[in-house]
């Protein structure tokens, strides 16, 4: 008996693999990034097929959307710096000495061996086997939310999630630090129509994002997806130059970055006492607290992702500093 979906699965899997190979082998970088974005979207599709809509959403929004934007921006910057902005066919952006083919083949051979080993191990493993299913099912009622993924993210393994936000924070600090004083490549010239489009779509996107966040407690969606969608707002604002960061906004931005983390961690600490340990929300306030955290974290994530896209710390750049900040 063949499940009709299986054919879809096989096609999808084949496409994913083909795209993966293509991403790495296609000569034009721009094409590679576009292929990668397609790949990400197809993966998200596959994950929907695997009943993981939250993940698919996150991948589509963050793993593909924001990442794609970042990659394209970077490519743009590199081409600008290299003076090859107009040439769509430029293959690489960094001067490289070619690696001998033998080494490439050796790498490929090793990786083939690894694939083989991992595949054997995978086939050997008990699929659909043990998991947290039962534990989660037991614990959900006490978690304060209905949706499993959100419960895991914000209650059972909220420590992980906190640290994940911390990673974002670390990233934005690092990026600011790295790019400080970097002169910017001129934004791609967005036409007036684009700007108008941006103006029109922005409110809609905000609504979608907020909805996602709200839905997160009982259905797929949540802080990260919501945050990503809201970040898209920021990215559009930045791209369309509807918003230009200024040095004066730095303090606010800082607060924005740490807001989610701070509140998250603060709540985690504040709930302690009376026999409760860190992160142990009192059951009666669990939902409220989680929503509070989720909301603020969403804002932080959005601001952070947008800042990651923008890159530079908005400072008044002195020419000398821009050249050498060593």
């Amino acid at each position, binding site marked *: 008996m063949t499940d009709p979906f299986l054919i879809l699965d096989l096609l999808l899997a084949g496409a994913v693999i083909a795209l993966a190979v293509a991403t790495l082998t296609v000569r034009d970088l721009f094409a590679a990034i576009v292929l990668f974005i397609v790949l990400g979207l197809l993966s998200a599709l596959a994950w929907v097929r695997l009943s993981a809509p939250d993940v698919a959403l996150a991948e589509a929004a963050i793993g593909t959307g924001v990442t794609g934007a970042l990659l394209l921006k970077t490519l743009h910057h590199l081409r600008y710096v290299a003076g090859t902005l107009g040439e769509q066919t430029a293959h690489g952006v960094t001067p490289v000495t070619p690696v001998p083919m033998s080494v490439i083949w*050796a*790498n490929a051979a*090793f*990786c083939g061996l*690894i694939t083989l080993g*991992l595949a054997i191990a995978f086939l050997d493993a008990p699929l659909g086997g043990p998991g947290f299913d039962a534990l989660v099912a037991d614990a959900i009622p006490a978690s304060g939310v209905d949706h499993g993924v959100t419960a895991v993210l914000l209650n059972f393994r909220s420590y992980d999630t906190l640290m994940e936000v911390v990673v974002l924070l670390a990233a934005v600090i690092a990026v600011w630090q790295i790019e400080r004083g970097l002169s910017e490549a001129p934004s791609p010239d967005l036409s007036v129509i684009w700007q108008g489009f941006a103006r029109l779509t922005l409110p809609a996107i905000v609504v979608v994002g907020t909805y996602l966040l709200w839905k997160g407690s009982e259905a797929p969606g949540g802080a990260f997806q919501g945050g990503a969608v809201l970040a898209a707002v920021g990215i559009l604002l930045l791209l369309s130059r509807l918003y230009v960061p200024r040095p004066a906004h730095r303090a606010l931005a800082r607060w924005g970055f740490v807001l989610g983390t701070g509140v998250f961690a603060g709540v985690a600490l504040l709930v302690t006492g009376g*026999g*409760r340990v860190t992160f142990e929300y009192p059951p009666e306030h669990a939902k409220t607290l989680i929503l509070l955290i989720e909301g603020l974290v969403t804002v932080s994530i959005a601001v952070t992702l947008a800042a990651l896209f923008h890159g530079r710390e908005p400072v008044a750049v002195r020419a000398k500093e821009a050249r050498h900040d060593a």
Partner: protein
Amino acid sequence: MTLTVYLFVVGWPLVMATALLIPQARPILWRMMPLAPLPALLLGLLVSAPQFVTGDWFVLGLTMGLDDVSRLFLIFTSVLWIAASSAARHWMREDPRATWFAVMFLLAMSGNLGLILSKDAMAFYGAFALMSFASYGLVVHTRDAAARKAALLYIVFVVVGELILFSGLVLAATQAGSILLADMRTAELSGLAVALLLVGFGIKLGVMPLHFWLPPAHGAAPVPASAVLSGAMIKAGLFGIMSAVPLGVVAYGDHGTVVMAAGMVTVFAALLLGVQQTSAKPVLGFSSVSQMGIIAIGLGAALMTPGAWVAIMPVLVFLAAHHGLSKGALFLGVGAWAAQTGRVGQIVLTLAFMVPALVLAGLPITSGALGKEALKAALTFGSEVWLPWLTLALTLSGVATTLLMARAIALIWLNPPKAPASKPEALALPFLGLAGLALALPVIWPLLDATMAAPVLDATTGALWPVALGVAIALMVAITAYAQSIGLAEFINMLTAPARNLSERLGNFWAVKRRAARRLGAAVPRTIESYTLQWRLGQTAIAGLIAAVLVIEAASSLRDVRLVTPALRLGLTEQDIGLQTPEVETEIEEREPDAILDEPVE
């Protein structure tokens, strides 16, 4: 027939000497030279003693013959002459006065053989004189100043000696009432006669203080002549004493004391004088003097105590043979060494030279040691008063001889003797032959005459230490002398040179290696690094390692290895390790006090 044989033996060298006067025959005769003493050797080997032949019609009646003693003398003497004449053949090849030398050589040979075979005083005296005077020609052969001086000294002593000897023999013959030596041997000779005989023969023997002629003469004569002078002819003195003096019959206490004292003095005084010489042959001459001192000790003891003669006599014969062969070898060795042109040959010959030298010095088991030990044993039959001193003197003579030999060897190198151009190996052969005989003497001797050999064979093997001591002293002296010659600091530098060289060489070696290693060490990492960077091998290693670990794991799963974690190996459970979360929040269990540190960490 027999007298003819004896006459042939003695006369054959004379015939050859005469024939030499014909120039055409000279080459053949030179070639035949080693054959001249051969009849004597054959006589000695083939005829069994005792044997007497008389030719009444000669002079006052000629008596010749062989007895046990003279047979042995004849054998080693003729062997020596054979060796010497073989050497002379080559030594004299280019010499302008070769014929003259050959004539004298043959005459002396004839005389020497003749006196051994003679049994009456007249014949003996005649042969003795022939030998002595012919030898003058040998000594003076080179005609240079030293040779002439030596020859003068020699001839003076010979003349005086002949005179004294003649008087002694006459007196003895009168007192014995016979000119037969055998009669004299058994007669009660007067003290004066014995004294005259002793002095007369003593001059030939070279015992101090009658030795003055000997070292210069031996030094001055050409090598083959020196060999027979030292090896064979001076034994004629001993032979004379043994033949003419009534040893073992009558006691001559005073004479004995004098002879013995002279012998003892000789042994060591010769050492002191010998080491001062500046060339090898006089040193060997003094060594002969020293050795004759030993023989004199034996004679003296026998003079004092006639009873000891039976024991002493065979030993003296043995010693005479031993010394003759060794010393002959040594002299020939000097010549053979001098003829060598290459360094290798010189070194080889030096080593070969050491064989007779050590034999002479009395290395244990060799004839030198056996002879001395036998003499010590024989002397126990003599005067007890002297015995310890004699033993000591004999023992120490080993040291003295060793030193002299060392000196001789050193002088060969420091002051190389001159030699005519000739085939080096031809000169080496007689030397090696004699040296071999000297070494093999303890084996050969019993074959010749078991009875005479008995006391020698019974003797102990002798001690090593006198020789060793001598060698040590010689080495020290040599080192000191060398150190003096090059300066102390230089010398110590030289001493430490091997260590320094070694360390320097090691140092150089290491320096070379280190430089190479440094080059390599600089090049290899750079190369590796550049490849690593260019090929991004570090990245490949990631994949390689994962693959390797996977393969190892796959392999081990096939090998049925029991997989245990360190934690499980110690039988711990989850609870022990405390990984399992207990029911309550924070687990603070009370544990046994010993699990807690005794003192809090500061």
